[in-house]
């Protein structure tokens, strides 16, 4: 069957590796002159998005589950990590309360709610980063797939899920800092978050996670299981008649994807310094879908590229023409759909293919 690392994956991973080495070195060795510090966390953020896009592509591109709620898994991962970072502040908060995060103190919480326990331990938190989104995905998927909720119905209930979570996390009673979310992080594993070397370290972690995510996704999609996922995408009912329990496959990939999204969120939180319910907003989840569609659905590398491209466009456009950037971004989306049916990756590959060899010779129609 297909090899684990095909050409496009190879090129992307090689590029990623170069970045992983060059960015921290360029930043640390030259005191930020070659690569300014803010570029490091910016790129780190992009790579988190890329991992999130890969996670979505896994379920959408290969299994046809258009999740409009993947932001929820990302945010949950982010919150799990945020909770740890919050705990790590200890008594250095403004109210100097060693047991409670600031927002709890000033909302007069008397003790730490049960679900905050354990998060002072980094490893526990790291586990939760995957387990919490994974558990939610399992629960949600178990019901939905068993009931054979598909297509737009599934999309919309995933949207309802993330929307409900957004509203819930807004509530101060939930104990997650309400609208402001979790902020004011000081350090992670004892390394101050505001230092360049920590940032570089986080960047390397993110790049590694992305590479690992891509490889895992690729391993899954090139396996027989991956082919069955595509069967489910194209003709779900037919797949059942072949004896495959569709719900099991969907559940598996949905949970894997949710965990991957959770990891992306966990890496995101320390790099942007805040996690708040805005991440649960339906619009955010739609944007993830847009990254994947723009990059090229069902291509993994394309999804990652799409995420990076859109984020980059947003960064540049909001700075270049703050008043009109929506025109540029909106126009970009329209043009890509109209003229690049296979996404940005398709364009890149077509250009290369054209350079390599002239148009493919006319094949014989076989009878």
């Amino acid at each position, binding site marked *: 069957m297909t090899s684990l690392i095909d050409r496009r994956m190879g090129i992307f991973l090689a590029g990623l590796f170069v970045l992983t080495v060059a960015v921290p070195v360029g930043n640390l060795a030259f005191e930020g002159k070659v690569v300014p510090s803010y570029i490091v*966390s910016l790129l780190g953020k992009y790579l988190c998005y890329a991992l999130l896009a890969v996670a979505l592509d896994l379920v959408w591109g290969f299994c046809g589950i258009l999740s409009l709620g993947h932001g929820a898994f990302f945010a949950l991962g982010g919150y799990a990590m945020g909770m740890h970072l919050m705990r790590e502040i200890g008594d250095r908060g403004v109210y100097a309360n060693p047991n409670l995060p600031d927002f709890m103190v*000033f909302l*007069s919480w008397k003790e730490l709610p049960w679900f905050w326990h354990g998060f002072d331990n980094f490893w526990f938190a790291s586990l939760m980063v995957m387990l919490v989104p994974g558990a939610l995905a399992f629960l949600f998927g178990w019901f939905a797939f068993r009931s054979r909720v598909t297509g737009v119905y599934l999309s919309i209930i995933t949207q309802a899920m993330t929307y409900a979570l957004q509203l819930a996390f807004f509530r*101060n009673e939930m104990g997650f800092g*309400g609208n402001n979310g979790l902020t004011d992080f000081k350090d992670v594993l004892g390394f101050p*978050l505001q230092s360049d070397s920590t940032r570089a370290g986080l960047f390397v972690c993110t790049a590694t996670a992305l590479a690992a995510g891509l490889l895992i996704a690729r391993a899954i999609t090139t396996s027989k299981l991956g082919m069955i996922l595509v069967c489910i995408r194209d003709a779900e009912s037919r797949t059942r008649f072949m004896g495959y329990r569709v719900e099991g496959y969907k559940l598996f990939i949905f949970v894997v994807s949710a965990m991957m999204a959770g990891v992306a969120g966990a890496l995101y939180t320390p790099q942007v310094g805040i996690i708040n319910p805005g991440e649960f907003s339906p619009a955010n989840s739609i944007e993830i879908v847009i990254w994947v569609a723009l990059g090229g659905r069902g291509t993994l590398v394309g999804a990652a590229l799409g995420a990076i491209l859109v984020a980059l466009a947003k960064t540049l456009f*909001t700075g270049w023409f703050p008043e009109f950037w929506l025109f540029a971004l909106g126009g970009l989306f329209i043009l890509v759909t109209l003229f690049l049916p296979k996404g940005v990756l398709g364009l890149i590959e077509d250009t290369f293919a054209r350079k390599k060899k002239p148009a493919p010779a006319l094949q014989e129609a076989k009878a």
Partner: protein
Amino acid sequence: QDDTIKVGVLHSLSGTMAISETTLKDVMLMLIDEQNKKGGINGKMLEAVVVDPASDWPLFAEKARELIEANGVDVVFGCWTSVSRKSVLPVFEELNSILFYPVQYEGEESQKNVFYTGAAPNQQAIPAVDYLMAEEGVERWVLAGTDYVYPRTTNKILEAYLIGKGVAPEDIMVNYTPFGHSDWQTIVSDIKTFGSAGKKTAVVSTINGDANVPFYKELGNQGVSAEDIPVVAFSVGEEELAGLDTAPLVGHLAAWNYFMSVDTPENAEFIEKWKTFIGDDKRVTNDPMEAHYIGFNMWVKAVEAAGTTDADAVIDALPGIEVPNLTGGTSVMLANHHITKPVLVGEIQDDGQFDVVWETDGLVEGDAWSDFLPESAVLTSDWVELKCGNYNTETKTCGGASN
């Protein structure tokens, strides 16, 4: 090294908050323009650097970093929502730059690099409630707000305050709604019912942004008049009213530190300039605009005094700086990085303006840490003497934050 002084403007020009923040960006451009006409500062021209954080909180942090690191701005004027401010705080702290924050907020914060030119709760909520109690004889209270930190905190402070003033807990009704709530039928009818208990009732509204228009429309349509149940709002200003037919709302109240209708020469001049700058005779001015006006002038004075835009020097120079505000007084930057402001209570008129019906005797000092919350009553902020934003007066230590 540069021959201009760069001023960062960090306000959302798109997304949900653009509705409020775009105006503040324009005000900043106007103020910078004016200053340049006066010859800049210390012989250097000012240059505005505008970016769009698009109502996206993490993007605020990214853009702040970009402004400071990539664009090399010396000061940033920006943010509206608390979460956006929270999001950029670490950036300003790390890169040691200056942020002027122009919006009323829940307090409970004082940071070395941030200057709060909007109202703290004691400069808006408490005086407004005092007015209603004293002048309108209100005994029953509806605290209605959008479900997020500012209303939650403000209502918490108010509840503590009201109960301290002898209001019975059953005479306080607290109600929260989601952002952008647009169906107010049930809540308005609940308010009516709550208000028909025989005691004079008022609504203290911390309803945010877009939700206000449908709220007031529903109030008007269900015939809740200001004479029966006045609503005093902390987030509704001239800009918000510009989107409403105010005829049914006449008499409802707002508490601010500035109203466009205030009759002072400074204000007249400001309004005049604003209308010319924006090229629209119908545009209104509002409280956060004045906050930027004050903040900007304070910063200019501080830079002039320090002779440099170097952040540390300016931060040190700012406390104690006095500039005239638009309501006829002089605002002072306090050691806790908040400013002194008058508190005005205005009634909505049918032309969309507020008529000031009450104001505090003198200027009120912004208090970073509320005296009505037990945990923060013991805290104080002083960046001049104590060099601490959260000094605990009981243990005589500075909380861990400033290391």
